[in-house]
């Protein structure tokens, strides 16, 4: 009983792993067909190449002409009749807010996260958000890069 159960488990594991070992045990005359099948399978699989596109890095550096870009987007969204205090324009209208933020995200490659949308009440808040650079490096890299005193040693066991 135990031997049968072990054999059954072994067979199951072999079938789960791959079909080739099972064919070897059961029939030897099928060995000639195996390389042919493997080749056809490989050829079929080569055609649709599914390559994952490279992940876009989350790093963001505010460009130097940030203010002018913001002003031009404000003019596009809110119309050309924009007062000189364009930073005080409120974003209460949801449609205008969405189009404004979407344009900025496309232009600068950095979007306002959902958790901070409620903080964007005025164009000034959006400007402040976009002046903050975002860095991708981990805390450990940041610590290593900053000048540490010579008696402090940080290792990384992960």
């Amino acid at each position, binding site marked *: 009983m135990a031997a049968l159960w072990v054999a059954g488990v072994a067979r199951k594991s072999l079938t789960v792993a791959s079909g080739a070992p099972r064919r070897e045990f059961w029939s030897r005359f099928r060995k000639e067909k195996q390389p042919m099948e493997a080749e056809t399978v490989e050829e079929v699989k080569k055609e649709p190449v599914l390559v994952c596109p490279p992940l876009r890095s989350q790093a963001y550096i505010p460009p130097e002409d940030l203010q002018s870009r913001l002003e031009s987007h404000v003019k596009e969204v809110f119309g050309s009749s924009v007062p000189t205090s364009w930073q005080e324009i409120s974003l209460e209208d949801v449609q205008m807010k969405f189009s404004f933020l979407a344009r900025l995200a496309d232009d600068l490659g950095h979007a306002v996260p959902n958790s901070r949308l409620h903080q964007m009440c005025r164009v000034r808040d959006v400007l402040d958000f976009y002046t903050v650079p975002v860095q991708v490096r981990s*805390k*450990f890299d940041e*610590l290593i890069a*900053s000048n*540490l*005193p010579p*008696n*402090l*040693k*940080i*290792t*990384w*066991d*992960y």
Partner: protein
Amino acid sequence: MTARGTASRFLTSVLHNGLGRYVQQLQRLSFSLSRDAPSSRGAREFVEREVADFARRNPGVVIYVNPRPCCVPRVVAEYLNGAVREESLNCKSVEEIATLMQKLADQSGLDVIRIRKPFHTDSPSIQGQWHPFTNKPTALGGLRPREVQNPAPTERPA
């Protein structure tokens, strides 16, 4: 337990530290904290913000920071007289950890047990400890107790 049942020691300093110059007795601090666990949040913040300044204020102490998978963050303090003290930083805030580090830096490596006397001196007596024979005259041959030194001259002829 009572004071008689627990260990106790006399007030002392390691090699008369402070008599000449003062040498900080803390030799080494080894932090082990986790990158992800919530119990080491205070330890992580301490490492990010405070540990570099602490290292600069105490240049005689070597500080090792080892982030590794662990449930309970700890700090091991080693002293110049060979004593090793391990403290747990589990769920402590940054301020608590900072005060704890300052306490470890101020300690010498002597045991934290009951101190018998709050004072100690290497020279308890300058002129010599009093005993019953101080300030008593001595005689050749020695005096026996209750023997008068000069007997009354009663037998002398007038």
